[in-house]
């Protein structure tokens, strides 16, 4: 699998992502500056966390108009695989490659702590190392992770099974009152979603920060191992 990480001026989790990818592929991913326009030979495009352009407007809004995004749109239309984490998820929604939007966290504060995600789909390149209903721990670190979408979009996401991950308790329960597990207030406890062809995945938490026992665990590793298996050539 040849992976590329897109680097915007304010991207700040590109090293974390590179470490996770290197761990499963054995080599460094390609770092692609946002003004570049060539994704030839790339199997997986990753949009990493950070504050792409300072994000004083809406998170990801300016990045969505960056030169590389034209190429990424075309990569997506050709069926390419894209993972967007945190700011990357925000950019994917701003670009329209994924539906919905990410609002300010419900408590209006930056959230940096572990959360638990329940796997809702286990038949995608991003999730097939898990079983449906599995729960894993992952850090999150964001100010704007409160996922929302209009009712018809939500109906479609839920109806077509395009929700990849939901915030849950450590036991995997998504409660009706989910304020203790769904800290940013996302609608339907949605933590990550998929495109219709299951080749684009956006999520707020950071599985790339939990891929080493030394850093507290390997709960995030299956996502990356799964991608390597799925995208082997």
């Amino acid at each position, binding site marked *: 699998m040849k992976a590329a990480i897109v680097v915007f001026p304010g991207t700040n989790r590109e090293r974390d992502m590179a470490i996770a990818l290197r761990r499963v592929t054995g080599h460094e991913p390609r770092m692609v500056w946002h003004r570049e326009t060539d994704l030839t030979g790339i199997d997986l495009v990753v949009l990493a966390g950070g504050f792409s352009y300072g*994000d004083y407007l809406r998170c990801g809004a300016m990045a969505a108009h960056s030169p590389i995004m034209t190429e990424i749109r075309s990569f997506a239309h050709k069926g390419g695989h894209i993972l967007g984490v945190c700011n990357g998820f925000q950019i994917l929604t701003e670009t329209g490659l994924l539906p919905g939007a990410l609002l300010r966290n419900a408590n209006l504060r930056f959230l940096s702590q572990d959360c638990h995600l329940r796997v809702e789909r286990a038949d995608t390149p991003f999730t097939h190392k898990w079983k449906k209903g599995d729960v894993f721990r992952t850090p999150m*670190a964001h100010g704007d992770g409160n996922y929302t979408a209009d009712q018809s979009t939500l109906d479609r996401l839920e109806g077509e099974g395009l929700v990849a991950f939901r915030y849950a308790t450590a036991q995997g329960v998504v409660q009706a009152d989910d304020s203790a597990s769904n800290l940013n207030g996302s609608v339907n406890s949605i933590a990550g979603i998929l495109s219709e062809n299951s080749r684009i995945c956006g999520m707020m938490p950071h599985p790339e920060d939990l891929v080493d026992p030394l*850093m507290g665990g390997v709960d995030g590793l299956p996502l990356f191992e799964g991608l390597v298996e799925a995208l082997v050539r």
Partner: protein
Amino acid sequence: MKKTVDDSLAREFGLTSEEYARVVTIMGRMPSLTELGVFSVMWSEHCSYKSSRKWLRTLPTKAPWVIHGPGENAGVVDIGLGYAAIFKMESHNHPSFIEPYQGAATGVGGILRDVFTMGARPIANLNALRFGNPETPRTRQIIDGVVRGIGGYGNCVGVPTVGGEINFHPAYDGNPLVNAMTVGLARKDRIFLSAAAGVGNPVVYVGSRTGRDGIHGATMSSAEFDENAMAKRPTVQVGDPFIEKLLIEACLELMATDAIVAIQDMGAAGLTSSAVEMAGKGGVGIELDLDAVPQREPGMTAYEMMLSESQERMLMVLKPDRTEVARKIFEKWELDFAIIGHLTETGHIVVKHKGQVEADIPLDPLADQAPIYDRPATTPVVPEPLGPVHAPLSLDATLIKLIGSPDLASRAWVWNQYDSTVGGQTVRRPGAADAAIVKIEDTSLALAITTDCTPRYCHADPKTGGAQAVAEAWRNITATGARPLAVTDNLNFGNPEKPEIMGQFIAAIEGMGDACRALDFPVVSGNVSLYNETRQPDGSAMAILPTPAIGALGVLNDVEKAVGLGMQDGKAVVLVGETHGELGQSIWLREILGREDGPPPPVDLVAEKRNGDFVRQEILNGTVSACHDLSDGGLMVAVAEMVMASGVGCELESPDSGIRPEAFWFGEDQARYLVCVDNAADFCARAEKAGVPARLIGQSGGNDLILPSGVTISAARLVVAHEAFFPALMTR
């Protein structure tokens, strides 16, 4: 409005009449407004250290592993494998009171620049914070703003905030302390210094544009607050962490080339201090053309540009044939880049604006004839020993009360707003070990980093308090298994023109110096913040508690050997160090009896070293699976903290000590650790051989803390009591 330069304006700028007379003598004529501005900020307490320099010189600053000590932008130590750690702590107290969000945010930004200006990528931030009485709405407002400001800046630049400390005391009501620390990493043969060289070399300005913010900020930080403090809001700078992030990346990219001769960030006193320091250190002159300075607004005068403290700016001297290489890098990062002057052989700083010479000052006397004061001081009186005290509450009720009290309650509400994992190298997050542990990517090395100070000890006995702050930092690093290397100090005190405050300062430095020498723990960087006082409505001034905050750093050669503080299952819990039951100035005395008296616990530096060296060796030998130093709240609080960190319980034995239970369990004797080991008898035998007191005090297991009386408290109940304080306070 044209200001007339005279004695009265000089005093408005913070100079005394004697200092102003010296300015006129040096110049041999009346200074211009810009020149007076330059003198006043360079000779401010903040920039000149005029009250503290004499005493700072007494601190030990050398060790074989120290590469650069005080005098550079930050301290530099060798951590092995060709790497250097570069670190410093700096205060932003006055701005944080006036405008908490921007004050704290720009404090983080300023200390980051001090570190990356030397060629280091910042890899960790910490913050030592002191707030006033939590019961007042203003304190809550300040906490909210400071925490948001630290997070808003640090999270965006992508440097993990991994640790720090918070204390509350009414003495900080009108004067909170925000001390920000950054640790960076560089190749030890790629360190950049600020001494300019090469007559004719271009002087280059990069980063944000210059505006009218922060003018005379350094002067403001060198005076007491009065009731009109809020009118000083225009002197607070506004930060832009996105620009800082660009500046970090652009500077590090440029530093990978050979273009830079010297580089210095524009911090306090902005363009003035960076230009003066670079030229002064290099023994050259400097000429600036202010027309070339990137400006945010039209119509700025030379005086305003020279004194502006606009953030996210750097000054560099480049090799003349490398300016285009540099320009391209800054254009890539969309930052301003301007050649604003050149080095000269005149030994003067010459400032030109619109064809006029606005300042022409000889650099040598500006530095050499800067005032230095040996201010009168009274020796602090050490309090009488604490007499007999009674214990009104049971041990379990006391414990629950203490772990929920403002100084001991969980700080999770705060650190959960700081990104602590970005970078992917955070081995122990806040609260998981006595010091934060950050790995050096692609090596087995890790740094252990902490900040410490116990202001109530320093207030009661500044010398012991100064020594204790250093000893506790050393102990916190030791408790992870790391080898303590060096210290950065952030000395926060009141008005040094008062003999009792000067006495506190001198005594605290004396104590710090003793501890640093005994523990082989030199001071490599630091910052002094004086005049932390607020004028009360009745005319009196309230000083803060003396707060010599210590930031410190150690190294682990093998990160796998690091231990945390979480209780491990099925272990013997052993207390290392001697217990006399010191309750003077303890949290117990304050929270249970409402008293703040008695002497602080004595600091025995020989015992500190012996006990610490023994514990560290045991950790490195792999016999210790968890370790926690004993500090605020004493032994039982430390046990509870270990239980809460992992959820694993502990059954305590009843002490056979001849000491009253409250003194045994809550006394704050120094030089002590709790460790989890497999074989207590073997461990204690090795301790005895090393001359280190050690005794078994419990067995770990289950999910409950079981007191010697048999009373059982579940780990979950402890956590609830521990975590309630901050969320309840901040949602009032």
